[in-house]
């Protein structure tokens, strides 16, 4: 104790004395006591010097990073977020409505697309065909007229396959060919072919000899085994 003042001990010096100048909670008297202790205690004086050296190094480290600034991109990103949050309510509502509208339109278009595709598949030559016998269309060059008729899928070069249900005369005026059975043609097809009238004789049909060299068109009812079962002359 000096001049009525209690001296600081080493432990107090370590806690309070080393940085007494910066600690605002330490009184002037406390600072004075720390200085006094360092004067009389060699160990604490050395500690003080060591800490002063460390502080200088820390100050150099602080100086080296004092110029650090947040990169500008951070400000950009944060402000972007800010604008997004504080967009006018109406603008946000409009954007929401537009988004939902677009989504709904996309759904409708897809639905119609799928529906149309199904319809097309059902109506296409390769698809399932209602009715029997089934058939496909084919283009037939007509040697007599020089014209050609529409087709969808090639079957033979000079024949036209027609669906039985689409026939204008209902497919009920066929003449059964000798040796055939109409019960076997449930899955058959009607094929329109161009031939010389004389060829009808091969089916056992009567032929006018004067017109035997004419080209005519006939519908053949072809069975599932590929052989003609019946024939008719279209109107």
């Amino acid at each position: 104790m000096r001049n009525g003042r209690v001296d600081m001990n080493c432990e107090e010096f370590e806690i309070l004395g080393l940085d007494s100048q910066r600690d605002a909670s330490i009184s002037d008297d406390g600072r004075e006591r720390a200085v006094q202790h360092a004067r009389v205690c060699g160990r604490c004086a050395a500690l003080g010097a060591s800490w002063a050296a460390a502080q200088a190094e820390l100050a150099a480290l602080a100086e080296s990073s004092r110029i650090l600034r947040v990169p500008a991109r951070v400000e950009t990103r944060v402000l972007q977020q800010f604008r997004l949050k504080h967009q006018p309510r109406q603008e946000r509502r409009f954007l929401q409505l537009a988004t939902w509208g677009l989504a709904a339109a996309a759904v409708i278009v897809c639905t119609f697309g799928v529906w149309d595709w199904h319809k097309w598949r059902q109506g296409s030559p390769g698809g399932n065909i209602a009715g029997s016998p089934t058939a496909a269309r084919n283009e037939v060059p007509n040697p007599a007229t020089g014209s050609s008729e529409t087709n969808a899928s090639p079957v033979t070069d000079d024949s036209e396959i027609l669906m039985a249900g689409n026939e204008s005369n209902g497919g009920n005026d066929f003449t059964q060919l000798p040796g055939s059975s109409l019960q076997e043609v449930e899955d058959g097809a009607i094929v329109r072919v161009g031939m010389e009238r004389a060829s009808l004789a091969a089916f056992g049909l009567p032929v006018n000899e004067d017109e035997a060299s004419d080209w005519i068109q006939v519908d053949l009812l072809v069975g599932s085994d590929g052989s003609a079962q019946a024939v008719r002359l279209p109107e």
Partner: protein
Amino acid sequence: MKIRQNDQDEELLKRSAKGDEEAFTVLYRRHADVLYRFAFRMTGSSWGAEEIVQDVFMTLVREPGKYDTERGTLPAFLFGITRNKIMKYNERLPREISLVERQEDGSGGGLTLRDSFTPAMWAEQRERLEKVRAAVMELPIEFRETVVLCELEEMTYDQAARMLDCPIGTIRSRLHRGRALLLAKLEMLRDAPRRWSSVAR
């Protein structure tokens, strides 16, 4: 309404909560650099610090109402969020500490070469600084943040106590322990005998 640079943080925050971008920008520029330096010194990574500062202000944008004026100042609030983010960041990372902080362009960080330095002096000082940085980074986090605030950010004990939302006695005690550990590490670097009696305590 025009923004003045000396407008109070609370006023600026109120205005930015209503969508005033200018007020928010002033607020950001006022605090972002300090938080960035703190995060950088705590994590040792510029990328990490950047991510942390961004997260802190994103929180402020999304939930400005989280800040309660009665519980402290806005900087203390922001420091609180930053500390939490730093803790999470450190938990995510492996335990290794990079001795050399790289800048974005791949060059080393640290000292700027000055004309009066010879290259040898510059290299020596830079090496020394990296060791000091590594020594700080190796401190336990509660001591590290006190050392960073009081020694590197040069805050008073009172300011640091407000930032960390703890009594001034806690700051003094943490600083004492942190300083002891740091001094021991630095003296080991200098190959000097340890004189710190309380390190083992």
